[in-house]
């Protein structure tokens, strides 16, 4: 049966079916390829970093009660680039066997604070937030205490896990 011999009603029905089929097949191909392509961009952007503990210092070298600012090298992943980067952390030996660690980033707006030995306080140069040696806010606009970092003492060495938190929020939220 040639095209001319097909009845008009049947031809219309066939034509409308073909149109539905074309959109369906195009949609399916778009779907099975489009979703993975989008997922590649979204998935790689929302990956959480897996941080591990890094060796920062010897416990014996830390004075009791006095904060010390220490650099340490940490392996990092930035996309496909893997290497070592230097971070800094505040360590305070609270007793013979215990140590607290603070992120050096001010929880107000992300400036780097310092230890004022005369006032025995941490002071942020940006907006004058002040904190006690155990991290409590005593002055300034800081919305929360200093961000403590996970710390462990293993065989006389202090290990710290580097973490970063959102600044400017009353709650401590991991970035």
């Amino acid at each position, binding site marked *: 049966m040639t095209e001319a011999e097909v009845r008009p009603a049947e031809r219309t029905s066939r034509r409308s079916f073909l149109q539905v089929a074309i959109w369906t097949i195009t949609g399916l191909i778009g779907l099975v390829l489009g979703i*993975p392509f989008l997922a590649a961009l979204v998935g790689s952007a929302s990956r959480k970093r897996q941080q591990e503990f890094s060796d920062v210092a010897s416990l014996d070298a830390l004075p009791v009660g006095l904060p010390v600012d220490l650099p340490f090298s940490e392996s990092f992943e930035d996309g496909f680039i893997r290497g070592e980067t230097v971070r800094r952390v505040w360590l305070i030996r609270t007793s013979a066997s215990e140590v607290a660690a603070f992120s050096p980033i001010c929880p107000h707006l992300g400036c780097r604070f310092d230890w004022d030995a005369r006032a025995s306080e941490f002071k942020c140069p940006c907006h004058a937030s002040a904190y006690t040696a155990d991290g409590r806010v005593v002055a300034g606009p800081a919305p929360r205490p200093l961000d403590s970092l996970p710390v462990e003492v293993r065989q006389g060495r202090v290990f710290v896990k580097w973490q970063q938190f959102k600044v400017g929020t009353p709650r401590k939220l991991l970035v």
Partner: protein
Amino acid sequence: MFERLWQWINERWPAKPVVQTLLTEEIPGGATFKFGFGACVLSVFFLQAATGLMQLFFYVPSVDHAYVSLSFLRTEVPFGWLIHNLHYWGATAMLTLVLIHMTQVYFWGAYKSPRELVWLLGSFNFLLAMLMMFAGSPLPWDEKGYWSTEVGTSIAGTVPFIGDLVKRILRGGEEMGQPTISRFFVLHVAILPVLLITFIILHLVAFRRFGCVGPWQEAKRSTTGPFWPDQLFKDLIMIGGIVIILLTLAVFVPPDFSGPADPLDTTFVPKSQWNFLFLFQALKYFPGRLEAVGTLGIPLVIILLLVSAPFVDRRKERNPAKRPVAMGLFIVVALVIICLSIMGSRSMPGVTRGGPPAKPEGTAGTPIVPPPSEGEQLVKTLGCLGCHTIKGEGGKVGPDLSAEGSRGRDREWLAKQIREPKSHNPASVMPAFSNLEDSQIDALIEYLQGLKSGDGGQTLASGLLQSPTSGFPQEGQPGSEEQEAGRPVTAAQQFIGDPRHGGKLFRQYCEACHGLAGRGGVPNPGSADGTVPALNPIEEELADKEPARFVAKIDPFIQYGETPSGPQPALKMPDFGRSLALTQGQISHLEAYILSLNGVRRDQISVPGVRPASFFVLVLGVFGLGILCLAGIRLWKSRR
């Protein structure tokens, strides 16, 4: 809502007439699958553009980062494996479909007047597609792509008069390197795509001017069928089939990780890409002065045949059965190209590879270094330097051979020592090289007897040196734990090596001590364990299911070596990385092999999105469901 938007657009832009022009076409003889190949080429081109664009989000075109960034995409980005594998197979699919499309046009006589320009523009697109594949090949900066480009640019370099200039322009210098990758990148992602898009549009416009040629039988041409929706429906079924084929290949036949480009690696067999294999093979038949016939003549003849076809063959006859000359010529050319390609794929390379720049000969003050003798080469390739020292280079496990020629040992003694070391000393840990040919033993003896005390000259390991891309971290030294903790991540740790290549290297460098396939059992007198540690299976604390962590644990041993505990171990692990005896690429191959011995794939996809096989089943399910729905609709409509 949609109709109002459509109307709003049409009041401001002639969308309706444009769509009508695109869709209104009468196909002589009615819609058929035979006329769907052009649409398939166009679709695969779009797929290549989309996957290429996606890769650009992750790929970095530099010699240091290309391989690692692409490996990251393929193993650590959700669906990155799918994007890359589709692009890889899409290139082959596109060129294959172009060839089918052209063959069909030729058989149907569709190049004849008045469609000459359609043919010419199409031929130009074919050449552009060939160049696209050529330009894309070195971008991963892996062994396969590097060497195929080395061969390809060398072929271009043999064109008379301008060859050297062309090669230099393509490579951005005499040797392959960063300028090469930059140039090929710009060609592949900017210049050639713009040309391709332009010429595809010109080709389509020229095609629509006279429309589809239809069947060659006059009677069949009298009926026609519409492009929309009849032909487009058939086109889409073919495109859907091609997408399924490409997905199957992407899932079940992923491209290999051939390891990072390593100009110093002499074990890789360079080959041109499959689409240039015929030329690669043809060049072997035109040595010396005749080379120009191959490099310039053959491509020119092919291009001339393509371009001149519509002007030489001016008869109106389109039936292939009545065009014996045209068909005969096509079959001969096709057979020659196919045969040459098959021969090329089976043969060994015929083009000299590049490698490190040659030292200027005879320059004042620069001593001319004689090429290494066969014996000297064998000493390197057999891994003798893993245990013996010669002129300050090599291991300390076996005796120093720097003055072997002065010891007065005769040929028979040396031959027996190489073939059966235990015949002289039953406690010897030297592997027996009993499978060497007589000529190789002679070459070794000749070399060893030539080693006299006080000889200066070139150090042996000089040919094995230097990491191909990022260098070896010299600051890390073996020894204390503190030093180990401070060791930077080596290049080898970041490269995904090829376990098959690693297997070859293992037999050459490691098997003598770690045993056949790393199964151990080789005695190490004086060590606490008494034997060399087995690597198959490896110690539990070194093994890891995660390939990156596994490699990070074993890498320091290969890079920096190790002395086993015990009073006086006879065998020590040499520092293959620090001594530059192996390149970082080679170490990555060895590591991939050791992982494979322990059931871990180095190229394991750690972030797949959806696992390839599951994704394949999912896609088949989605397509199956779609077909079922369509069949239901068809049935329902026909009953009404």
